[in-house]
């Protein structure tokens, strides 16, 4: 044990390497009821105490495996789902508390892009109506002004503005995703949550959408939360990456640093598991295989949630929960033994 007095730990919302955050998430919790358990009501701990800051103009990637809570976190941030407890600040407005006109004005600056361009567009609405809907909902523009704005954003995302009267089924997957992006842009937002925006697309189309999102970001000064399970795409598009496991964020850091030197054992496992499209790098890659299955979020393990599967777990890991704190400049990990796997 060191004799020096311990300095207070730095949390992700007070990252000194970051500009003043556009979005600040504090102790965010989202539980879902899961029917009756053995001792009364069972609860799914989908998001369980998340601290996160997103700087203006950056892309923050959020990765994790299915069921880790990443999509739920995205939905709570944009208020598609109410938070159980905790706060989401957007430019100092607490989205979990604000109501009425102020909520509308704030919410207008936050938009979402969804994974499935087949399910997220109403098949009975024309493309023009789909893209114009936010304008009407927020009472921003109607009539001629609205249709001018619609044509403008369609051009921006690479869709032919003459297609406003067509229906979603007349478009391919990649074009539909462009329609979804046009809808998210029409209100001129500052912050966009994109939930697996390219996972449903063919490889050659994925690059089109990734490039488009990068162009839009620099053109309109957008801030992205990019949620995905595909590490290679997330790493490419993101400035920083947050890794989630069973409702908690286990690591945050610059995307290339996380690849080159993961601090949390789970990040290391994830990085080692992804095959890469290069036979030489593949021959050198040694995947670390995890034992067991991902535990149930109804009854998550005590203390560090990864301890049941962690290759380097010690007794302390099941007794004391490691807080998510800064281990190096701009790098956060929730682990008693960071960087040791």
């Amino acid at each position, binding site marked *: 044990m060191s004799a020096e007095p311990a300095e207070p730990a730095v949390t992700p919302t007070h990252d000194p390497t970051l500009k003043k955050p556009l979005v600040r998430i504090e102790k965010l919790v989202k539980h879902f009821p899961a029917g009756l358990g053995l001792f009364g009501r069972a609860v799914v701990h989908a998001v369980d105490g998340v601290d996160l800051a997103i700087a203006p103009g950056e892309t923050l990637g959020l990765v994790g495996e299915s069921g880790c809570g990443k999509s739920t976190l995205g939905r709570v941030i944009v208020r598609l789902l109410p938070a159980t407890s905790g706060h989401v600040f957007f430019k100092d407005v607490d989205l979990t508390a604000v109501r009425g006109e102020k909520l509308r004005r704030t919410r207008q600056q936050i938009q979402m892009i969804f994974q499935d361009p087949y399910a997220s567009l109403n098949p009975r609405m024309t493309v023009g109506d789909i893209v114009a809907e936010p304008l009407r909902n927020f009472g921003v523009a109607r009539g001629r002004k609205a249709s001018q704005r619609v044509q403008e954003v369609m051009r921006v995302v690479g869709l032919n503005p003459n297609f406003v009267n067509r229906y979603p089924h007349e478009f391919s997957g990649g074009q539909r995703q462009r329609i979804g992006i046009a809808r998210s842009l029409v209100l001129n937002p500052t912050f966009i949550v994109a939930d697996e925006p390219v996972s449903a697309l063919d*490889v*050659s189309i994925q690059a089109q959408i990734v490039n488009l999102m990068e162009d839009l970001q620099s053109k309109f000064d957008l801030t992205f939360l990019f949620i995905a399970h595909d590490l290679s795409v997330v790493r490419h598009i993101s400035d920083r990456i947050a890794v989630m496991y069973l409702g908690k964020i286990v690591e945050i850091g610059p995307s290339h640093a996380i690849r080159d030197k993961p601090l949390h054992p789970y990040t290391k496992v994830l990085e080692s598991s*992804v*095959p890469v499209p290069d036979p030489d790098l593949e021959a050198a890659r040694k995947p670390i295989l995890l034992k067991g299955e991902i535990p149930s979020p109804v009854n998550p393990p005590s203390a560090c949630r990864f301890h049941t599967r962690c290759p380097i777990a010690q007794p302390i890991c099941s007794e004391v929960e490691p807080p998510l704190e800064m281990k190096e400049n701009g790098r956060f990990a929730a682990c008693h033994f960071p960087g040791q796997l």
Partner: protein
Amino acid sequence: MHAVDGIDFEVDRGEIVGIVGESGSGKTMTALSLLRLIPEPGKITSGRILYGDKDVAQMTDDEIREFRGNDVAMIFQDPMTSLNPVLRVGFQVEEAMAAHRRFTSQQARDRVVPLLQRVRIPAAKDRVRDFPHQFSGGMRQRAMIAMGVSNEPSLLIADEPTTALDVTVQASIIELLRDLSRELRAAVILITHNMALVASLCNRVIVMYAGRIVEEGPTRAIFKNPQHPYTWSLLRSMPRADEVEKERLISIKGMPPDLARMPPGCKFHPRCRFRIDRCLTEEPPLAEVGPGQIARCWVLMKNVENPEAEALK
């Protein structure tokens, strides 16, 4: 419509061949036709499928049943819909063996637990009595693989075997497939859209586009020295794993052709940045471009100067 048009390839014992392509490229149809499982009203209109020296296309119904059950195993993408939800997993594995009468029912019963152990299902002795819903996605895929290898097939066809699975689970299934191909000395055909999976597992790669083979060769040659513009662009449309600074991805404009309205000439020419006039009218043949490597292109990437700059224009 020709979903698959004039495909020639061979797979040897102990070899893993990857068939890659995007949706609609004909990769799954190719695999299904190997088993004569093409959905109605589709049919094989011409060509031969030789297994050893038997022609699958000419087999009688009894012969094809025998062939599908004993010589070949197929592993599908979605392990959820491939298992019967009301039957115990162990019973389904046993049934797969019993159906083809290679083993007596007692032998089949005795082999279930070792098979589940072989595909690394933990506590296999207890888990044989579980129902599919008690298994996770990865475990279900393992059970499907156990069924597939239960008759010791000499040809294993895996159609997107890891696509529905999480990355950490994917990694263990990849390892399992690699080990099994060695142990069984089976020929393996891996059908996937995932180039990284191919780089990881395959000795040889077949790239399909619009129902045709556009390039084929040893894995390393295809990745390091692709000659068809489609292969080349596909590889550059993915972020590099060792990327240090953000590099612009090379996208392929447009989308694959509708099978009912195929363009004339080279089927890739409407999307190709390197096309010449000849590509618009005349379809190129597959020609040798390197040791064991063939490509269907009039131009070939080795003849293009500074293709990256051209593609990013």
